[in-house]
């Protein structure tokens, strides 16, 4: 209900056309916006009464990163942002939503995305002396799981 209204308000505030929003299951509205419009979009969402940020999903789609900001108020609203792989930088929304700090720190250490203005950019889950690069990236698989991950792959296919 009100996430639909917010989605429409968002579209006309950011002057996006109809094609950018898409309906995904468990009644979520997904709107694709650009990197620069993030802070403005989050401000309008907060103003319209949606304050709960469920998660920030980060994933790698054919060599550029896609960030998903999942808001929720009885139904979902997701912002999708595409970052190119060479310079994965985006400004952090911690000043607006302090609760996003852990999600951003995790995305930073798992995918290597720079969040400008992150309060304390310290590793959240990985050990301090971690040299295994960014573990969640597709191509750059850590040597540790290259050996065992692949045979799981074969076993998965063969069984």
């Amino acid at each position, binding site marked *: 209900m009100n996430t639909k209204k917010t989605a429409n308000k968002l579209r006309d505030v950011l002057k996006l056309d109809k094609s950018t929003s898409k309906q*995904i*299951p*468990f*009644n*979520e509205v997904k709107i694709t916006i650009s990197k620069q419009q993030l802070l403005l979009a989050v401000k309008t969402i907060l103003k319209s009464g949606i*304050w*709960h*940020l*469920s*998660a920030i*999903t980060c*994933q790698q789609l054919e060599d550029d990163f896609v960030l*998903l900001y*999942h808001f*929720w108020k*009885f*139904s*979902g609203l*997701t912002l999708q942002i595409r970052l190119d792989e060479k310079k994965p930088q985006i400004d952090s929304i911690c000043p607006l*939503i*302090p*609760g*996003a*700090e*852990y*999600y951003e720190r995790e995305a930073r250490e798992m995918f290597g995305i720079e969040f400008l203005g992150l309060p304390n950019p310290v*590793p*959240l*889950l*990985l*050990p301090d002396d971690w040299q295994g690069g960014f*573990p*969640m990236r597709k191509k750059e698989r850590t040597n540790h*799981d290259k050996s065992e*991950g692949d045979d*799981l*792959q074969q076993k*998965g*296919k063969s069984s």
Partner: protein
Amino acid sequence: MSKITVPIGPQHPLLKEPLSFLVSLEGEKVTDSVLRLGYVHRGIEKLAEQRTYIQNIYLIERICGICSHIHSTTYCQSVEELLKLEVPKRGLYIRMLLCELERIHSHLLWLGVLAKNIGLNTLFMYAWRDREIVLNIMEEISGGRVSHSVNVIGGVQVNLNESHLSLLQQNLQELNKRVKEILRSIENDRSFQARTQKIGHLSLEDIKRYCVVGPVARASGLDIDIRRDAPYAAYDELNFEVPVMTKGDVWARSILRIHETLQAIRLCVQIINNLPDGPVSITAPRRVPAGEVASRAEAPRGEVFYYVRSDGSQNPARLKIRTPTLTTLITLPGQLKNMQLADVSAIIAGVDLCIACGDR
């Protein structure tokens, strides 16, 4: 005054799981605390990308021992949504039954840990003795006391016959009586109140700023429960209240969780009484069509969020899990500010941390 930094380190009687807490004290008062996670990080999301959808169920249940069924429920319902599967009603009902049994088991476990941390060992023993009833039921149904692999993609692989239903009926009455007795004993136990009231306070706009979920948020006045507001499985056919309190300290959270346990027992009784018959699950194809889904469910500690994206192959392309404990961990340093050192144990137990969930 003397400034000491007390490490409530990875190995501490207060914590069942490793979590490093550096609390700096001035005399007995906590000035500030630094939290370090990551001791239980096993890279579940990375492992999930190397396994097929069916193998992932076995992995997803091992994220956390206490709320293993709710994790597999959220995961299975998001994959069923991708496959556009229509899960039979009886399967949904059995899935909900185990969700509620696990909520009772988790809340009674939490009550025991809180009582042990504030020195009331007798309540710890009583709460865990009553918890054995729920474990017996779950063992009877699914064969496993703690992690019971009941969910499959497309339904449930366990069926309830007459003996299960009569066992459930009789044990749930007994459990209801015992939980009411525990509630009565807590409400007029002055030493329990003395140790839990007016500490670890979280105001409503703190809840909103840090997006806190679950019993911790409902104890500060936030009236949101995924089972009622965005019903999944078949929760819209059951009626239950969602207890909400406004005081927002460890005492309010304790009473709220026990009321939630009573509500969960009431839900289980409803599920048994009008359990539809019919098949329990339908077979699901191995390949999942491309697509993405964001699904949420009400874990004993709050909203658990799953984002699954599939690219048509056998393995999920991306599986994002956000567990409720992460939101309460952000607020902990704030809650501990200028509290006594002795209150730290009550506050840490009050927010019911499940660090295995938090670190994934």
